[in-house]
């Protein structure tokens, strides 16, 4: 009863959504897909902003929608962040934050101060929205959604309208939310990078249907996803910082299967983190290792092989201990190396991105 059960059927001219999904009641769940895949519509159905042709929705055992019940949006205990911050232009930042607080139920799990603090907007409270930058506006939008003390936070591509610099400005705040909030977050995104950084659980959507869902690492390591990630194909590993090498400015992180060296970003030893390993940065080799500039060499067994989107390329999944890593190589090098399922290979990882 701690889950979110959603069943929606929407039939509009030129668009249909057909979803029957159980979402975890904690952590960040990314709804991922190309534009038009129905991810935003699904989120809006959950918020009650769209009324599906047919729908059932229960949130932690509480019925929000079925054949007889329709809980209007303003009675659902949720917070919603729109793609454009959509602040009320006639109210100051503080006025925007208070708008929801005044109307929220009295049990405050998230106070005004906490929301202001989490998003770093204390110095903006007296300003009108038109005096804020795009990034600041979106931070206020997120704080406003949090200030109503929601039991679930719905975010519709909160970074999509921002340029790269603004994204980099907001991402650390979102990562803080991920670490500090206890409520579930549904995060709509078409950016593999945001998903890799923020999500615990991944729902992949295509043409109004859910094509894959499950824990982030497992789902990213699947080779049968009908949507191709191309350059973004890769896995995310949960890891712990084990050692810092001050002399070379490197950090060693341990994951279930081995350890990897990465640039030191000042994350202290013992801290949990996640690393993203892109398939294009992983090469496979057999035989004895020679001298190489590549620092990270592991050993594992080929687990699965699948075509990539280019006819000359393959995606190979290698099992290393309890983790999987994807490698993208040309079919020619796969043939030269004699890659087949079960074969032991050396895995060379050119670069590793530390996500938190």
């Amino acid at each position: 009863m701690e889950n979110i059960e959603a069943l929606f059927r929407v039939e509009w001219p030129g668009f249909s959504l057909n979803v029957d999904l159980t979402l975890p009641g904690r952590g960040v769940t990314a709804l991922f897909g190309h534009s038009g895949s129905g991810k935003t519509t699904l989120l809006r159905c959950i918020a009650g902003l769209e009324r599906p042709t047919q729908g059932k929705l229960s949130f932690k055992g509480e019925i929000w929608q079925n054949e007889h019940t329709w809980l209007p949006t303003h009675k659902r205990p949720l917070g919603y962040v729109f793609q454009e911050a959509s602040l009320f232009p006639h109210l100051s930042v503080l006025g925007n934050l208070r708008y929801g607080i005044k109307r929220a139920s009295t049990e405050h799990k998230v106070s005004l101060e906490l929301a202001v603090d989490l998003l770093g907007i204390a110095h903006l409270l007296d300003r009108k929205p038109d005096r804020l930058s795009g990034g600041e506006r979106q931070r206020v939008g997120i704080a406003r959604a949090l200030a109503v003390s929601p039991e679930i936070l719905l975010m519709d591509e909160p970074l999509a309208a921002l340029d790269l610099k603004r994204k980099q400005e907001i991402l650390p705040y979102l990562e803080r939310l991920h670490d500090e909030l206890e409520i579930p977050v549904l995060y709509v995104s078409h950016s593999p990078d945001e998903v890799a950084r923020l999500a615990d659980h991944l729902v992949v959507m295509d043409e109004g249907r859910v094509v894959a869902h499950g824990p982030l690492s497992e789902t990213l390591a699947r080779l049968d996803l009908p949507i191709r990630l191309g350059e973004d194909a890769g896995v995310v590993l949960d890891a712990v910082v084990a050692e810092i090498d001050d002399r070379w400015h490197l950090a060693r992180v341990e994951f279930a299967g081995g350890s990897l060296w990465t640039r030191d970003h000042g994350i202290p030893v013992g801290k949990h983190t996640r690393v993203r390993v892109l398939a294009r940065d992983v090469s496979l080799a057999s035989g004895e290792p020679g001298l190489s500039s590549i620092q990270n060499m592991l050993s594992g067994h080929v687990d699965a092989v699948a075509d990539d989107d280019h006819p000359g390329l393959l995606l190979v999944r290698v099992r290393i201990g309890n983790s999987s890593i994807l490698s993208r190589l040309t079919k020619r090098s796969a043939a030269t190396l004699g890659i087949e399922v079960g074969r032991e290979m050396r895995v060379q990882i050119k670069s590793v991105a530390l996500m938190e």
Partner: protein
Amino acid sequence: MGFSDADLAAIWLTLRLASTTTALLLLIGTPIAWWLARTRSMWKGPVGAVVALPLVLPPTVLGFYLLLILGPDGPVGRLTHLLGLGALPFTFWGLVVGSVFYSMPFVVQPIQNAIEALGERPLEVAATLRASPLDCFFTVVLPLARPGFITAAILGFSHTVGEFGVVLMLGGNIPGVTRVVSVQIYDHVEALEYAQAHWLAGSMVIFSFLVLLTLYTRRPNLNKAG
């Protein structure tokens, strides 16, 4: 020379009529404008057209039909008789009813445009912040669409002040009851009292100019808020 007592009575009556009409129109016109701005119903077109009819109809046509409907033998007239209100034509409240229809598009359309310009988003945001639809109307729609409401009130008021044909058809020319400024001017001219006519007519020109000046100098604000 200045305004005669009869002129002053006509001015007072006109202001009373225009204020009453404007107040009623804001009450009646706002839900109509809200519905027209947001509905996807097939009735949007027909209802919008009916609301806009007074823009193109000669006021005498409107006055004629209202006279029939409100008169002792008309459907509404019988009802008002049953309710003990008597017949409405040739009374102040008859003029109010006529003016409400006559000035309806001038109030409904600016409000409708302002609400349409807001779009769905502010309403959705308010709903996700726990505001009920009514709450949202007063705390989000009204402040954001305020320029539209002000334009509506100014246009509704001044258009009622400038009314003539409907008044003559429905109210006649009863001093202190239905003799508004425009009718009073007509009387002065009929009686060749040109000096008296000038005073009232000139005042109307100045009044109308000031109203339009207010509206047109407010324009930039209106666009910004929309």
